[in-house]
C-alpha cells in the first residue's frame, strides 16, 4: 500500500502524516501544483493552513491542480483521508458533506480528545470496532462541523457519521458531536482530530495508527 500525502503552500502536518503512513506502508509527498497522484493507492490531505486559510478554510486549496486528480481518484473508489484542514478541503470540494465553522469559543484549542467509533466498516476505520474509544489530539480554530438537519438525518441513516466526540469532549460545538464523516461509499473519510499525531505510545497514544492500518488492510 502506497500513501500519497498532499502538500499545499501552508500545509504543516504532511510530515507527520507521511511518517504515520510509513509505519504501515510506503508513502510519498504529492505537490499541490502537480496534477499527478504518482500511482499511489491512497491519498491523505493533511492538516495545516493551505493558502493561508484566505477567504474561507479550504476554499482555495480545493481548486489546486492536484485536487482535480483527487476528485477523480475518489470517484473511482480510491481511498482518501482528510485530516483537519484536509477535512475542510474535502468538504469544500464536495467530496464530503457539510462544512466546518469557527469553534463556538472562537479560540484556537489544542487538546487530547476521546473519539467514539460509530462506523467501523469504512476504508479508514475497518481496523477498529464500533464503540471503541480513540484518544487523539485535536488542534484547530475552525472545527465546528455543520450540516443541515435533513443532511444529518441522511448521514446517520447511511452510516456516514464515522466518529463522534465522546461525552464532554466536543469542545468546538460540532452538531450531534460529529468528529468525522465519510462519503456514501466509505472510501473518503474526513475528521478534525489528528490521527497522525497519535501513532506512538511515547507521545501518549498510538490510537491514531488504527486509521492508517485500516487503509493499509484494504486490498490495493
Amino acid at each position, binding site marked *: 500500500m502506497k500513501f500519497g500525502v498532499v502538500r499545499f503552500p501552508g500545509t504543516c502536518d504532511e510530515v507527520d502524516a507521511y511518517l504515520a503512513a510509513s509505519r504501515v506502508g510506503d508513502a510519498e509527498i504529492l505537490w499541490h501544483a502537480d496534477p499527478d497522484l504518482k500511482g499511489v493507492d491512497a491519498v491523505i490531505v493533511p492538516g495545516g493552513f493551505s493558502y493561508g486559510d484566505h*477567504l474561507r478554510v479550504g476554499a482555495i486549496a480545493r481548486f489546486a491542480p492536484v485536487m482535480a486528480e483527487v476528485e477523480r481518484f475518489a470517484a473511482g473508489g480510491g481511498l482518501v483521508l482528510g485530516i483537519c484542514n484536509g477535512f475542510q478541503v474535502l468538504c469544500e470540494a464536495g467530496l464530503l458533506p457539510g462544512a466546518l465553522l469557527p*469553534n463556538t469559543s472562537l479560540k484556537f484549542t489544542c487538546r487530547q480528545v476521546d473519539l467514539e467509533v460509530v462506523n467501523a466498516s469504512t476504508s479508514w476505520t475497518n481496523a477498529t470496532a464500533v464503540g471503541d474509544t480513540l484518544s487523539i489530539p485535536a488542534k484547530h480554530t475552525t472545527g465546528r462541523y455543520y450540516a443541515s438537519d435533513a443532511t444529518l438525518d441522511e448521514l446517520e441513516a447511511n452510516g456516514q457519521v464515522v466518529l463522534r466526540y465522546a461525552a464532554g469532549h466536543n469542545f468546538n*460545538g460540532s452538531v450531534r458531536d460529529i468528529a468525522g464523516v465519510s462519503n456514501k461509499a466509505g472510501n473518503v473519510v474526513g475528521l478534525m482530530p489528528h490521527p497522525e499525531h497519535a501513532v506512538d505510545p511515547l507521545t501518549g497514544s498510538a490510537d491514531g495508527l488504527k486509521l492508517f492500518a485500516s487503509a493499509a488492510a484494504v486490498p490495493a
Partner: protein
Amino acid sequence: MSRVRVLIRPKAGILDPQGQTVERALPALGFEGVTNVHVGRLVELDVEDPSQLPAMCEKLLANPLIEDYEIQS
C-alpha cells in the same frame, strides 16, 4: 468595468459566535438596545461581466451550505 460589492453573511439559523460576541461587547461600552448582530464579510471587485457574479459566489466567494450572499452593483 463595474465596481461590485458582495456581502456574505452566515446563513440564518446557524450559530454565529462572532455576532454574539459583538452583541455582548456593545452594552459593555454603553451602547444599549442592539440585537441581532451578525458578522460577515465584504468582497469588493471590479468586473468586466457582472453577469458572472452569481456563479463566482456559488463556486468561490461564498459557501452556499453555510453562507448567504448579496450582490450589490
